[in-house]
């Protein structure tokens, strides 16, 4: 037992050494002696230890040929096809001094690359490509036979529309760039790819349209991405977001996410820069302001009039979600503030629990319910709904814990939160509401007013990628604000939003 442990440790030790070797970029060139290569690769990727890596050795025209692969990431039919062709070549058995050329001519694949170092080969292999070593040769053939496990495009759950495209981004970055390019057939669309993460080597793609997007912005984003030093990015886009924008202590979302290729394309045409991270269907739109989070694709699928109506309903809902509870609590605590027309507001009977505690408990209950609904498996959600409705609704009132008014306003706020198009913004508004409630219960009217002012000033002070967060409201830009208040018709949109500093500010060229 002890011996085993020590060999394990030794093995680990070796591995870390190798890891360092990769980082120090000491390149190992492919040796002419194929057995030497095999030994190095075996040690590096743990052939025989990891069951999903493999090598297939063939004897072709008298030379040894090795095909290295990772079986979970490759298209096996493509490899079989390849093997078949190579075997046929061998079966014909014509003597030739140019074995390498003969093999190259029989690689049944459109894309063949040549690599000279084992590091490149191994990285490719671990990305799902295969590489082929031929005895006595110093170059490897690399063939792209990737076939990643994944789903096909589906409508994203949290950005549904009644009409319009039903496809959504997937976890596959290649498919995602394809989905974008389907909508932007512009030769100037750029998909820059770079790899981040010392161990994970995650692909990240920066997309922009070259003659629209602000080159400075592209540079900033690229530099921020290149500066990321991490083992890996298993949480993909979220990690990238935290590196691009410094978000500590700020509950507000500083970038916009979308899973809809049409939304992404709209933003590309406006001059935004988009960041896609492999293995995540959410893509990042930069730069973002507060008001990017209150719009929804559905508005642009309806007539402008209806779109405006939808938007105003949503604004009102969000506004109510933020202010109605604190205002109600204020009116309860200081009834003399109530205008004559609203005198009926306020609890009519005395309760055992203070209004603030009622609100706090109800909010806590709703928050729990929301979390439970996310995590509960679907057969249980019906039961959950029943329990929640009964407990929080009827029975809590009958027991005398809650007054019905509290339930009404808490429910209204909760619905407003759910109607916020951006999930992140919804939660941030919930936090603001809670701060306002605490301010009201501690200092009544002046607490409410001062807290609201400070929160607004803090929001105004946020700069994400050096763009003011509350633009176009504050700093005020009338034309841009008009486009947020009113869903204008597409033909009337002449200019791109100035916040992205577009190189070409006019949407439709005059010709």
């Amino acid at each position, binding site marked *: 037992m002890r011996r085993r442990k020590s060999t394990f440790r030794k093995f680990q030790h070796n591995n870390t050494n190798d890891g360092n070797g990769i980082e120090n970029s000491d390149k190992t060139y492919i040796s002419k002696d194929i057995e030497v290569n095999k030994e190095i690769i075996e040690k590096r990727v743990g052939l025989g230890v990891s069951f999903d890596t493999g090598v297939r050795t063939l004897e072709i025209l008298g030379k040894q040929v090795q095909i290295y692969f990772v079986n979970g990431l490759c298209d096996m039919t493509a490899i079989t096809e390849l093997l078949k062709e190579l075997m046929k070549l061998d079966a014909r058995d014509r003597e030739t001094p140019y074995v390498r050329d003969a093999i190259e001519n029989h690689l049944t694949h459109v894309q063949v690359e040549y690599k000279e170092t084992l590091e490149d080969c191994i990285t490719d292999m671990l990305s799902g490509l295969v590489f082929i070593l031929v005895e006595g040769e110093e170059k490897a053939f690399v063939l792209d036979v990737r076939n990643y496990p994944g789903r096909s495009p589906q409508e994203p759950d949290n950005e549904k529309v009644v009409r319009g495209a039903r496809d959504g981004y997937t976890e596959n970055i290649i498919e995602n760039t394809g989905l974008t390019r389907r909508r932007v057939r512009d030769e100037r669309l750029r998909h820059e790819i770079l790899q981040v993460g010392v161990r994970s080597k995650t692909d990240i793609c920066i997309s922009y349209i070259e003659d629209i997007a602000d080159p400075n912005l592209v540079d900033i984003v690229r530099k921020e991405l290149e500066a990321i030093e991490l083992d890996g990015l298993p949480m993909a886009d979220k990690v990238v977001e935290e590196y691009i924008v410094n978000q500590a202590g700020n509950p507000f979302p500083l970038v916009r996410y979308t899973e809809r290729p049409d939304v992404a394309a709209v933003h590309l045409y406006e001059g935004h820069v988009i960041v896609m991270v492999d293995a995540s269907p959410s893509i990042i739109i930069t730069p973002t302001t507060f008001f990017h989070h209150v719009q929804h694709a559905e508005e642009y699928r309806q007539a402008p009039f209806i779109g405006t109506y939808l938007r105003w309903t949503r604004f009102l809902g969000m506004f109510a979600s933020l202010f109605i509870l604190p205002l109600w609590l204020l009116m309860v605590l200081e009834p*003399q*503030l109530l*205008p004559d027309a609203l005198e009926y507001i306020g609890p009519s009977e005395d309760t055992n629990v203070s209004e603030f505690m009622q609100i706090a408990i109800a909010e806590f209950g709703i928050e729990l319910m929301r979390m439970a609904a996310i995590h509960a498996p679907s057969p249980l959600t019906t039961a959950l709904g029943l329990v929640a409705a009964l407990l929080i609704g009827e029975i809590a009132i009958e027991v005398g814990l809650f007054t019905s008014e509290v339930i009404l306003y808490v429910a209204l706020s909760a619905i407003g939160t759910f109607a916020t198009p951006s999930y992140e913004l919804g939660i941030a508004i919930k936090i603001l509401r809670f701060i306002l409630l605490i301010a009201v219960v501690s200092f009544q009217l002046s607490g409410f*007013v001062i807290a609201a002012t400070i929160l607004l*000033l803090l929001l105004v002070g946020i700069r994400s990628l050096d763009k003011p967060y509350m633009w176009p409201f*504050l*700093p005020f830009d009338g034309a841009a604000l008009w486009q947020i208040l009113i869903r204008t018709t597409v033909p009337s949109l002449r200019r791109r939003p100035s916040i992205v500093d577009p190189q070409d500010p006019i949407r439709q060229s005059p010709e």
Partner: protein
Amino acid sequence: MNKVSVYNQKVAIIGFFGGLIWSCVGYAAFSLNFTKMGPAMAMLPWALPQWKETYLGHLVGIFFLSLLSVVVAFIYRLLLQKWESIWIGIGFGVFLWFVVYYLLHPLFPGKEPITSMNFSNLSTTICLFVIYGVFIGYSIAYEYSEMQRNEA
């Protein structure tokens, strides 16, 4: 020359809408009894008929304040446009508040002076002026720096 006139136009718009938006908010605060100073206060110095005390007075007050704000915006543009900082705006707001409620107090017959205002009345009016100041100040400073950047 052209750029400057575009800039001036923007300053005027910022001033007008700053006055419009925040005097509307002030009217809302007045309706909820947060403060006793509604936009109609701007109408008090003028010898007008009785309607200046009703909601009509507030509406006219909102309009008058919007126009007055254009002047305020140009004052800011002349004095403080170079500093793109929220604090300048806050200071500007507090200064305006002081001017209106202390220096100009004799103009508003029937309104209590600063010294006898209660705390909630005080905080509501100060906060409103602070946000108004930031709105005007930050917007103008942003437009100014945008104009400078585009020239460079």
